[in-house]
């Protein structure tokens, strides 16, 4: 799916790092060009962006807070990539999971915190997994491309959760949202008096787990085989269809936890239309991370910073924060274009030369 697979050696790793950094720099430059064309001061814009992301303790906390959901969605998209699948349905998986988590937390009053939180998270992961399983299953059984089905399921999830909240679970008031979840269900703070909760620990633990499974287990090898060469996977006895559905379900479960931890840690209830696009940002995160689990950490931090900085840019430089979405789109394009790196690597003109296969057959 990407330009080759994560190479095993250090040089490949460095090359990928350079490519990702290059893509981000190019995207920021293109953003600057856009700002200049629209008549803004690029310096003011990027300065307020930087201030909003790293200027003081609060902005750093804001960056971290914005990065947490991205750790989950980025990891989810990266895992699917490794299995040869493009999960752009993380947004819908988040909604399904967030509602399931909120309803579980509300349905089990009196449970002790640890149990209640665990149950709520598991309910969310299960809902996200179900929302991911459907397109995975359809891909495996009918060949329907998961990009189209997951996008459709995003709209379905947002509409369905809105419908359910409006008709069944609405708390009194003008806003379409559920009641507040009990205190026992809320994720404890990691740093007192901030909204930085244990969610970040859950995310990093998941990243470690996924990385370990991919590198060290037969499951991981199955998944990677399906991603790199489904025919070879079938030849090796891997049940390709089942693994495809499973990969999407796992990806959906991880993406779902982005919604669940937002509900338990930040929002403390389900609010309709709560996501500012964490799902789509997750795509940019995963690509910038070159679909490596540990790469998701710096990538999520970067995009979390952009998101936090974008708001401050809007407040102080009066530049609409949606510029950040533009930059995300550009990063995706730049990372995905191997030809771009080739342009810089050698002065090769024309198409990339084709290596002769040994022999002529």
């Amino acid at each position, binding site marked *: 799916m990407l330009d*080759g*697979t994560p*190479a*095993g*050696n250090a040089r490949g790793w460095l090359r990928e790092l350079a490519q990702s950094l290059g893509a981000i720099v190019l995207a920021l430059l293109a953003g600057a060009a856009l700002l200049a064309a629209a008549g803004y001061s690029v310096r003011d814009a990027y300065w307020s962006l930087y201030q909003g992301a790293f200027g003081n303790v609060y902005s750093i906390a804001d960056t971290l807070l914005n990065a947490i959901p991205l750790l989950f969605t980025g990891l989810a998209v990266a895992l699917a990539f490794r299995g040869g699948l493009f999960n752009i349905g993380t947004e819908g998986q988040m909604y399904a999971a967030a509602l399931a988590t909120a309803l579980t937390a509300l349905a089990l009053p009196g449970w002790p915190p640890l149990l209640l939180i665990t149950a709520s998270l598991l309910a969310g992961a299960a809902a996200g997994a179900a929302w991911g399983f459907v397109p995975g299953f359809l891909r495996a059984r009918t060949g329907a491309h998961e990009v189209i089905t997951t996008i459709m399921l995003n709209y379905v999830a947002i509409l369905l959760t809105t419908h359910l909240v409006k008709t069944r679970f609405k708390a009194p008031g003008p806003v379409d949202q559920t009641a507040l979840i009990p205190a026992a269900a809320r994720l404890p703070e990691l740093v007192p008096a901030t909204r930085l909760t244990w969610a970040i620990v859950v995310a990093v633990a998941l990243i470690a787990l996924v990385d370990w499974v991919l590198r*060290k*287990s*037969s*499951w*991981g*090898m*199955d998944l*990677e*085989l399906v991603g*790199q*060469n489904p*025919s*070879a*996977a*079938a*030849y*090796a*006895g891997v*049940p390709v269809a089942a693994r495809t559905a499973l990969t999407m379900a796992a990806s959906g479960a991880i993406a779902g936890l982005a919604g669940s931890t937002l509900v338990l840690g930040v929002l403390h209830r389900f609010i309709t239309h709560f996501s500012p696009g964490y799902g789509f940002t997750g795509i940019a995160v995963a690509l910038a991370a070159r679909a490596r689990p540990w790469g998701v950490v710096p990538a999520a931090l970067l995009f979390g910073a952009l998101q936090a900085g974008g708001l401050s840019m809007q407040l102080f430089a009066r530049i609409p924060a949606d510029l950040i979405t533009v930059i995300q789109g550009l990063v995706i394009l730049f990372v995905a274009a191997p030809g771009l790196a080739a342009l810089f690597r050698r002065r090769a003109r024309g198409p990339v*030369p*084709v*290596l*002769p*296969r*040994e*022999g*002529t*057959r």
Partner: protein
Amino acid sequence: MTATGTEPWILEMIDIHKRFGPVVANDGVHLAVARGEIHCLLGENGAGKSTLMKILYGLYSPDRGEIRIRGQRVAIRSPRDAMAAGIGMVHQHFMLVDRMTVAENLVAGMEPVRRGLLDLDRARQQVQAMAARYGLQVDPDARVQDLSVGQQQRVEILKALMRRADILILDEPTAVLTPQEVDELFQVMQQLKADGKTVIFITHKLRETMAFSDRVTVLRGGRHVGTVRTADTSPEALAEMMVGRQVMLRVSRPPAKPGETLLELERVSVVDRRGQPRLRHVTLSVRSGEVLGIAGVEGNGQLELEEAIAGLRPLAGGRIRIGGREPAQPGPRGRRALGLAHIPSDRLRRGLAAPLPVARNGILGRHWQAPFARRGLLRERAIRDHVGRLLASFQIRGRPDAPAATLSGGNQQKLVVARELADSPRVILACQPTRGVDVGAIAQIHRELLQRRAAGAAILLISADLDELMALSDRIAVLYEGEIVTEGPTEAFTKQQLGLWMAGQRPVPAAAKDSAPAKEGAAGA
């Protein structure tokens, strides 16, 4: 290599250099071709023949060197330039669109137009006129996917002729043909020659070189070894030029000592996605210590047979027993559990996950088994040791942590073979085991297969290479349109007879002796 004055070179390629990254494909190659001759470009796989011809056809640009056509220096930057210079090429992998008709394929890029629209009537006439002139009969309205390989090749030749080619390059044209089709192709080449066309014929087969060509240019390792008149040379001399040392042209196969039956197919049928039968009631058995070869023109059910035995395709009917037992679970794992090893016909599509490291590819399909995995966890130490042994015993050049894509084709194939033969399998399904690898690797793979035979394995060999089949097999069965049309000991067939069976005809027993030269057994297989 200079013109004697009497021979006007229609084509000269002088000091051609071309490298792809670290790989030097052409290293100062010379080629001079006289008008109206059939010139053979001979060399092993990887010798640089195809690269040289792709440079001539404008598909690659040379790093250095000069091309002259009719004495004029020319720059060929694209196939369009090549066509304008009167060069046509018949590629080894046909450049035809399966879903389009013959006429559409032939006129694309030079379409006759009437009132802005495609004039298919005129296209049809053009095709028929050209076909009649060279005796290359094809139906212009047939879809390419419905044509036989030989017919598709005719379409390719017509394509070049319709573009007024004077110089026709044929890239390994006989690799996919039956012996009879090869003879027909030879007739066509003679016809072209009589018409004043020049033919450049790429091959690695000595027999064809001796039979077809006027002169031969030999390449080895990207370098020009020499150019000789065919009449002045011998297969042995050519082989030595080609490989650089004296080579054994024959593999010795001691007599078989067949034991118990290890692989049995009983009325096996397979249908494709549209429900069309692809294998009909195939019944075969292979015994311990013998090699059963499957001959056939590609597309007659070989792939389906391979996939059915390997568990990659469900059976529409019949049963398969390995070691006397039917697999307990469907799919490749059940077969493997009964002792089946499978060397797949397409190593890049199936045999390897090229982007993954060599070490992972070395345990492909065994990555859930001890000692490589325990409770779902990979054991790197065991994997490393095992793959290290594979690389050493097959002399595969490559690092375990490098992607398999970085190996050369020959080393990739050796890796697949090494992996499959590693756990002393009882039954070996070997499909095109030497496709696209060099002579050294071929010899090694043949040797390994015969060793397993001697050790009591049952081997089913599916190969498009008749020389290979006849050299390795104890018995041969011919697959035609999904059916086994004949089966017998290898000695009972001549190559010509096999060719007739492969073409769906029944050879007359008396016609066993025929005129075609059959000098070499497994020459340069």
